[in-house]
């Protein structure tokens, strides 16, 4: 009942544990060198180079280090990690074990969002099976002195905990409020120890790179955005589901593949991403053009873009942790603006102020939530101004939610 449509994925062609065996056969520095060579960037959305992150964590001198798998997939329109954890949990755990070897950690933690509690049992089963097979525990795969184990900790329903420092706060038993960075988690992470926090897909990719080599990985994608990426496609298209495409694919090509041609706009990167109108569908999905953590939401011509903006702002008002003022107050003001637009009573002067406020939020917010929350609203105002400005009062509808 809850299975998604899944396109062909590279993950299914990877020989089990080939990456881990390759990693154990080489010195630690070579693992990171191979990852560096592949130029793989974090798949969660921020796009930080994985090799650099591991390298920082590996360089730290500490009695204890942690590998943390960020399975707090909360970005609206993203569900690829749910599918990866369902279909390829071994690959993710293999990636974590490789990370443990690379940075010198003995403990891995999967931070699984509360909404995915139904996945926990099967993940625990997979972990138990791996322990039996000697893929976790003392002397992994018979390798003397390499101990690594993984435990699962549940989130408790907070979007902001997808941010790595907020995630660590939550793991430590605090409110999910992002920390100042620096110090970064690779230096001072969980319990003050060096920790690498990586997305589910990134860790699975790391296992693939070790199995097949950096050159294989680099053969797909663009120069700055190497490899393929898994997309979660939803909204007004014929075949919503999970698909793998090389980075650098144009939005038009992607839409053609999922039966979404003729769309009016596409939201790339979820609520914190940007809304791309049909005129710009030739733009490429890659870190150098339109970046994404994999969320693609398609809007058909009949959709009211103001309702879309309103929905996103409602989301951010609800999910802002409330720690810093630009985000806490700013999102509420943005929502107020969207409501006035809906009633047709927003003055142009107020609109200009909203634009300035959006800029302030982008600069002054403490974490990515506040820095990006106004993006969608602003790109909708910019691209669909004719549709949303000066609505007649008759068109207004009662406030929802």
């Amino acid at each position: 009942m809850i299975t998604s449509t899944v396109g062909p994925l590279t993950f299914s062609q990877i020989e089990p544990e080939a990456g881990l065996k390759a990693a154990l056969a080489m010195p630690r520095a070579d693992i990171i060198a191979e990852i560096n060579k592949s130029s793989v960037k974090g798949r969660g959305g921020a796009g930080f180079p994985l090799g650099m992150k591991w390298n920082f964590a590996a360089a730290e001198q500490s009695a204890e280090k942690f590998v943390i798998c960020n399975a707090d997939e909360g970005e609206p329109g993203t569900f690829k990690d749910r599918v990866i954890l369902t279909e390829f949990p071994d690959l993710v755990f293999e990636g974590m074990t490789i990370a443990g070897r690379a940075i010198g950690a003995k403990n891995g933690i999967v931070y699984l969002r509360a909404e995915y509690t139904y996945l926990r049992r099967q993940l625990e089963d997979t972990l138990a099976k791996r322990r039996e097979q000697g893929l976790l525990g003392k002397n992994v795969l018979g390798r003397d002195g390499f101990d690594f184990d993984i435990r699962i900790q549940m989130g408790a329903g907070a979007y902001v905990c997808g941010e790595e420092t907020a995630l660590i706060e939550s793991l430590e038993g605090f409110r999910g409020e992002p920390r100042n960075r620096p110090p970064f988690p690779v230096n001072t992470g969980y319990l003050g120890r060096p920790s690498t926090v990586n997305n589910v897909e990134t860790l699975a990719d790391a296992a693939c790179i070790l199995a097949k080599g950096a050159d294989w990985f680099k053969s797909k994608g663009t120069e700055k955005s190497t490899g393929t990426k898994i997309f979660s496609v939803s909204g007004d298209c014929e075949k919503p589901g999970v698909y793998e495409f090389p980075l650098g694919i144009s939005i038009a090509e992607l839409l053609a593949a999922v039966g979404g041609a003729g769309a009016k706009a596409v939201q790339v990167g979820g609520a914190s991403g940007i809304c791309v109108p049909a005129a710009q569908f030739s733009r490429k999905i890659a870190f150098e053009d339109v970046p994404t953590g994999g969320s693609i939401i398609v809007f058909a011509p009949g959709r009211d873009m103001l309702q879309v903006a309103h929905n996103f702002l409602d989301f951010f008002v609800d999910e802002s942790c409330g720690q810093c003022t630009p985000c806490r107050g700013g999102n509420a003001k943005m929502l107020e603006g969207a409501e006035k637009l809906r009633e047709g009573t927003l003055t142009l002067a107020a609109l200009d102020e909203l634009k300035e406020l959006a800029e302030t939020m982008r600069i002054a917010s403490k974490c990515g939530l506040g820095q990006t929350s106004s993006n969608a609203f602003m790109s909708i105002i910019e691209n669909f101004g004719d549709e949303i400005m000066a609505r007649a009062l008759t068109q207004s509808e009662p406030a929802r939610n």
Partner: protein
Amino acid sequence: MLITERDKLSSEIGALADRLGRTRSSLIPMLQEVKRTHHVIDSFTMQIVADALEIHPVEVHSVASFYAFLGTEKQGEFVVRLCRTISCDLADKDAVARQLQTNLGIGFGSTTADGKFTLEWANCMGMCDQGPALLVNDRVFTRVTPEKVHEILADCRRSFGVFAPEHKEEHLV
């Protein structure tokens, strides 16, 4: 709360703290467990948890009130959460919302008088390709229609009342 109930809850929390370890990192798992079994994290619970971890109870309150799946309000045995984020919204979650409110006789954010059901909104629950999506405790339902709402709620109701062979509650973990 009766004194005996208090004693029982205290020893339960004590055992939980021993099992999970008396460190701050155990706070959220402890609160999750208490919430799951008692459907509420009240001020007495917060005090006992705080004592077990040697922190101030206000710390426990700050954490309990922060997370959407914790909270300090008493909730029903079945917490029904309807996703309101964009893809489910496009898939007409409003019709499902109306049916839920009608069938339960309560609005979002409230609990039925018999303490069985709580109705809540949820933000994106990662079922965007199969909306509208609904969580009942830990169970997920997708492509929910107003007709299915009745079925889902009736299934919950079968677990209590005169037709229930034994008290059975849906929790996966």
